[in-house]
């Protein structure tokens, strides 16, 4: 019944938009700005997550071989690779370790002049598979390594991981709070604005009721109008976001900050854009829905 009338309601909604152009422009632009704020936030979070996942790429474990242990390192390597979550293993001999250390000191090797015995241990560096780079898995692997009894020490940047974990926690709290706040603000502002636009047309609604229109007949074009407003608003906000992004990247490049570029800070991928538009459209629809509900209950 309602579905059959959809084309009619769509036409009506479009002509309503035409009729009250000013109000619609105001509404759509408000929706754009509200969603722009929210989507800017989404983009920032998205890039932060990207950045963080690149930090995570760096995560690795170093297991220092006990000086007293004697045995084929190829054998150990094979055993290590059998562990869960290990992608690659490199071996570094005692001699190599010293060489690297000396190189890293450069000319400041004040202390090494007088050394007689190589104090550095041989070690295995373990790269982890995707999905095993979180704290829990790392600690499990480290424990497994220790239990092998052939390593004097297992190191995986415990302290750094701790800090990182803390940082991620703060980020999560702030992200959720701020994101939730923005979301709430967007929903609130959009539904408020739509409430006003519907209020502007309360007379129209009253008249339609008096001449025998059912509630759903009156509401349907408003729903569609809200839907269109939400859709157009969020598409505009994405265009705006892209524009802001370009401006920001240009600005950042002239300041040449931290080597930020379009690979290290990409625009939102299409999936996100589609989600944002869907979200905006839904908001427009919900805004109409809630406001109409209130206005119909009132009278």
């Amino acid at each position, binding site marked *: 019944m309602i579905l059959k009338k959809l084309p009619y309601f769509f036409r009506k909604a479009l002509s309503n938009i035409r009729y009250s152009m000013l109000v619609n422009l105001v509404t759509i632009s408000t929706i754009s700005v509200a969603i722009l704020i929210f989507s800017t936030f989404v983009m920032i979070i998205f890039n932060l997550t990207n950045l963080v996942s690149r930090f995570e790429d760096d995560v690795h474990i170093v297991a220092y071989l006990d000086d007293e242990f004697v045995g084929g390192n190829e054998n150990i390597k094979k055993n290590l690779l059998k562990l869960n979550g290990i992608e690659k293993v490199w071996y570094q001999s005692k001699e190599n370790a010293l060489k690297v250390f000396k190189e890293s000191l450069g000319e400041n090797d004040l202390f090494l002049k007088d050394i007689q015995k190589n104090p550095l241990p041989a070690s295995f560096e373990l790269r982890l598979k995707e999905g095993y780079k979180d704290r829990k898995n790392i600690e499990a692997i480290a424990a497994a390594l220790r239990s092998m009894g052939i390593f004097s020490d297992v190191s995986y940047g415990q302290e750094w991981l701790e800090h990182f974990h803390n940082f991620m926690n703060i980020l999560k709290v702030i992200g959720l709070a701020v994101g939730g706040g923005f979301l709430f603000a967007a929903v609130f502002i959009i539904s408020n604005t739509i409430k006003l636009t519907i209020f502007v047309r309360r007379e129209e609604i009253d008249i339609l009721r008096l001449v025998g229109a*059912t509630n759903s007949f009156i509401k349907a074009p408003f729903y569609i109008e809200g839907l269109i407003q939400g859709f157009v608003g969020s598409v505009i906000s994405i265009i705006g976001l892209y524009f802001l992004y370009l401006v920001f990247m240009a600005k950042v490049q002239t300041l040449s900050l931290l080597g930020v570029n379009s690979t290290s800070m990409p625009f939102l991928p299409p999936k996100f854009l589609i989600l944002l538009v869907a979200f905006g459209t839904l908001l427009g629809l919900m805004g109409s829905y809630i406001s109409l509900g209130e206005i119909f209950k009132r009278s």
Partner: protein
Amino acid sequence: MIQLYHVYKSYQKGANVIEDVSLNIDRGEFVFLVGASGAGKTTLLKLLFCAEPITSGQAMVNNHSLAKINPKDIPYLRRSIGVVFQDFKLLNNRTIFDNVAITLEILGMNRNDIRRKVTKALKRVGLAFMEGKYPLELSGGEQQRVAIARAVVNSPSILLADEPTGNLDPELSVDIMNILTDINAMGTTVLVATHDKFLLQKFMKRTIIINKGKVSEPI
């Protein structure tokens, strides 16, 4: 068609605007409702199409009990009633054509039928050439005629006209009254609230007098 039985209506407690009205209007009747300003004519009409709830009493309109009607049925009751509002109630942001078409769109009529019927109704009230204009571009009398066209376009089973000639010159008033009697002749029950003594005299019809909310009929 319309039956009222000890109907009362008050907007605020205590002050009855309609007081103990009992009334019977048969299918196909043509009735004038006359009374001074503020007597309760508009209020009485509003009760009939559920624009206001009755405060007490019993009322049947087109087989709906006004006291017990389910809110969901109100739109369907209203579709069977054409109303010419005293203040027109046109949609200012829609064209004249669209204003008249509303009644039909609500019924889900197809576009061709709508076009045909609306054009005919507008022609009848002498405004065919104005269909593309907006209400605020019309004179008072023209707006009133649009309101009349909207009320009659669907040949409703009841027509309630509240002061339908208040903004019209005597000649046009007679034209409009002729439209109303025509539509009445085709079966519509018509109830016209009016101040116009001239029309009352010219169209000798059943007349209900309302005075401070109480009705009476001259014999």
